[in-house]
């Protein structure tokens, strides 16, 4: 194969999650040229598989006050600088009968010490505002929690970075480092799309691969200590509460329900995992969450769930605790100088709320190394709104569509009411960046497939839409439908009971019963059916199967 093409830049960022994109923006604002390589897509990892909580910090006041105060400070910054990605819903901390009364008693003072406002709320008043709260509620405190849309945050950060010259290489996996003494001369990247290989020469390399940071470090020959904690969340069919509802007790399973726009998100679990491949929610985790969360919000016991998802928290340092909760949720920045590398930095750990700060710290280090003196601007520069990035906000599409009603703008996704024009806008934006957008890309950047039907209908409509616009050719559509639904399936599988099981059955009746997608290999060859004719001739029994 011919020698890989070469790209040169100042800084190479590895990983397109909230930290990586925040880094790209940070560098771009400082005028530092950078390239971001992402093995999959924006927020494909933990950044896109969390509950989207903008922590007030109250969750950590007991265990980790530093983290708590960090959250409070960063939360305030994001509320000012990235307002469009945040719904300031406010949050409740709720204790129910049987919860640790001492913890409840200490909570207000602990919050006060961390500088977090926690107002005691009359239980009846709280239940009037949030009827879903249990009758067995014994204490309610109001805290400045909010919900944040991590996809929009990353997409818009990247959009601004790009507008300032940064480059994004999606579906490009780092496969090796070329070391030269204490320096990394180049990073070898394999683009999954074309299968072509790239050499990227950068003065500095930042590893922001989140959970995959350890693998990247190993490739670079500078191992770090990390553990993985898998967290699973469930998505309800309807939104159950207006505010964030936290369980007022030490961090544990199923202690939060987030308002996810038009749905509620219930979680989370925390289990140690050692491998990162094939992380998916299990039925056991779903059961655990439903049983536990229903004590705080009884309706969750009978609620219809439309999907589950699981992400991996990168935890820095090695803990023995089985669930990894004991390990700090603070972040870690490695300069790798003790490992004899002076142009690699690794930033990992931490949490969504502190992603900007993580980027700032890492960028400061890199800039110091580059001799760039310009300060970080992200704490004072509002994140510009990018129209094509706004479609991940739940409940927005219907409004926009209703405004454009009467124009020829059909809905492609009925559940979340995403219109053709929205899909076209996303498609155009990706196209202009030289991408070939897939249904899955559209799904990540919009609400398509996020609703009750989980892609059963909208995947078909969207594919038909793209064919009719001439965007799809050949038999690609079927593969895309299959990929899209397959990806959705990962999340559905764990919550398939009751109504959602009926929904899934309908999906299979359509995609297998009618379309026969599972047979497409056989069918698309369009060759003769296999059994040769004579109706009653016994067909050759397949090996290993003996008729009784």
């Amino acid at each position, binding site marked *: 194969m011919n020698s890989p093409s070469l790209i040169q830049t100042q800084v190479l960022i590895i990983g397109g999650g909230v930290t990586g994109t925040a880094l790209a923006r940070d560098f771009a604002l400082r005028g530092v040229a950078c390239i971001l390589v992402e093995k999959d897509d924006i927020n494909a990892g933990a950044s896109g598989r969390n509950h989207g909580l903008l922590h007030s910090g109250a969750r950590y006041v007991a265990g980790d006050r530093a983290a708590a105060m960090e959250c409070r400070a960063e939360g305030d910054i994001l509320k000012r600088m990235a307002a469009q990605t945040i719904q300031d819903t406010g949050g409740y901390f709720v204790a129910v009968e049987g919860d640790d009364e001492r913890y409840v008693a200490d909570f207000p003072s602990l919050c006060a010490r961390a500088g977090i406002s926690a107002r005691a709320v009359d239980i009846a008043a709280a239940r009037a505002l949030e009827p879903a709260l249990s009758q067995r509620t014994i204490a309610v405190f109001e805290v400045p929690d909010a919900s944040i849309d991590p996809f929009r945050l990353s997409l818009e950060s990247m959009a601004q970075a790009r507008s300032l010259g940064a480059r994004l290489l999606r579906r490009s996996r780092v496969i090796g480092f070329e070391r030269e003494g204490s320096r990394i001369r180049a990073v070898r990247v394999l683009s999954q799309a074309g299968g072509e290989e790239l050499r990227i020469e950068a003065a500095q390399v930042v590893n922001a691969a989140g959970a995959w940071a350890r693998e990247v470090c190993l490739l670079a020959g500078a191992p770090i200590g990390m553990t993985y904690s898998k967290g699973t969340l469930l998505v309800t069919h309807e939104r159950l509460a207006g505010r964030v509802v936290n369980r007022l007790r030490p961090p544990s399973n199923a202690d939060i329900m987030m308002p996810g726009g038009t749905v509620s998100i219930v979680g989370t679990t925390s289990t140690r995992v050692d491998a990162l491949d094939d992380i998916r929610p299990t039925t056991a985790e779903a059961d655990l969450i439903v049983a536990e969360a229903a004590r705080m919000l009884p309706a969750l016991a009978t609620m219809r769930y439309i999907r589950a998802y699981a992400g991996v928290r990168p935890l820095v340092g090695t803990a023995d605790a089985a669930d990894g909760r004991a390990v700090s949720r603070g972040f870690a920045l490695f300069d790798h100088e003790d490992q004899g590398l002076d142009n690699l930095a690794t930033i990992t750990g931490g949490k969504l709320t502190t992603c900007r700060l993580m980027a700032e710290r890492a960028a400061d280090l890199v800039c110091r190394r580059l001799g760039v003196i310009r300060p970080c601007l992200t704490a004072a520069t509002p994140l510009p709104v990018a129209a094509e990035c706004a479609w991940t906000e739940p409940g927005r599409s219907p409004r926009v569509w209703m405004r454009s009603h009467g124009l020829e703008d059909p*809905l492609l996704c009925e559940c979340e009411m995403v219109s053709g024009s929205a899909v076209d806008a996303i498609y155009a934006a990706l196209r202009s960046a030289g991408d070939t957008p897939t249904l899955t890309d559209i799904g990540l950047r919009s609400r398509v497939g996020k609703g009750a039907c989980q892609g059963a209908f909208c995947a078909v*409509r969207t594919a038909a839409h793209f064919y*009719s616009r001439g965007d799809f050719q050949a038999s690609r559509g079927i593969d895309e439908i299959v990929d899209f639904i397959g990806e959705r399936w990962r999340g559905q599988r764990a919550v*398939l009971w009751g109504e959602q099981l009926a929904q899934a*059955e309908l999906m299979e009746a359509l995609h297998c019963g009618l379309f*026969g997608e599972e047979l497409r290999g056989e069918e698309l060859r369009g060759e003769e*059916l296999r059994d040769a*004719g004579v109706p009653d001739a016994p067909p050759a029994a*397949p090996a290993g199967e003996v008729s009784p």
Partner: protein
Amino acid sequence: MTGARRDSFDVAVIGAGMAGMAAALFAAERGLSCIQIGNGGSLLFASGLLDLLGVHPVAERRLWQSPYAALAALAREQPLHPLARVDAHSIRAAFESFVTALAAAGLAYAPLGERNRKLLTSIGTIKTTFGVPLSMVAGTGVLDARPPCLLVDFRGLREFSAAQIAATLGRSWPGLRHQRIEFPGCEGAPELYAAHLARALETRETRARTVALVQPLLGDAQAVGFPAVLGLARAREVHAAFEAGLGVPVFEIPTMPTSVPGLRLLSALEAMLSARGVRRRHQASVRALAFDAHAGTATLELEGISGGAGGERVFARAVVLATGRFTGRGLTADRGGVRESILGLPVHQPGSREAWHQRDFLDPSGHAINRAGLEIDDAWRPLGASGKPAWPRLYAVGSILAHQDWMRSKCGSGLAIATAWAAMDQVALALGGTGAG
């Protein structure tokens, strides 16, 4: 002045999917008085195609040209499969009887014959099926011969793109063209709905205007395919008018729900049952089902029925469960497991929910939960906890039965029609009526 109403019947059929409809039809044909409870909703999801058996074994994705050969193989290899319990003769009789009744109700099917047919689907895959409505049958020949052919779609009918089918099959079918037209009278409408188009086409004027739009696009096409929207109650006339107007064979391509062929099937079946005096209770469900050993009658408490105090009570000498699976709500699944919805009959099912579904949606071997269902004895009677029939004259038919995966085997209609036929033979015998002729 009304209290709780009281009615007695030979047979009560619970469920109004394909199986329930077939059961009610066959009951009526056997001279049994029949009441049928439940709305025909799930028929709206039907494609109008009558599968018999297309794939076996599922895991091998093996397609069959002769459903009867496939059935023979199935009988040998999976004796517990409900279709393995019905002999080929009965299946032929059941299908004949079913499509004859449909034809009488205005929904004509192509002669059944002995072979499966291949059809285009709206996303460009090829579907193997058995019973094909006349309005679609031209498509099978076209698919085999692949002559120059035109596919037409309507802007605004979101789930159907002729371009998609043409592009998907283009490589192996060079003569396949596609054209998009505006549906007459709906110009500029952002969204169109299949059923509305179907009904609009029942007026001569709209029909003529549509044909006039397609006529100039014909070119060398030897057949024209449309989404399945060519008429509802007047489907036969609409299809005939299109063929006459265009001068070439015209065929419909099945679409995803809500499908017009499904609506046709529903109204044809309802008309068929009405004509045969089958009493129907739509939008109603059975709250309770009790059996009186001595009187030998079952008592059905209906809910959802209003008017007069006390709802409604129905008495029947035999009861047929045709309540379907999860979509039809014959089976109820909660986190703990699956149970039969009305009587809580034991359900054959995988051990834990983790085992219900494969990790990949399209896993060739299919999902274990789809083989869950009711176990029955040789007389189609579901077994109770004791392993004996739950009640001497309680029968179960259709997709609620265990040991089958109709979605993967492509045997949905076959399962419904064949099991209904066989079970109704048993009902007739038990009630001392006439067996199947």
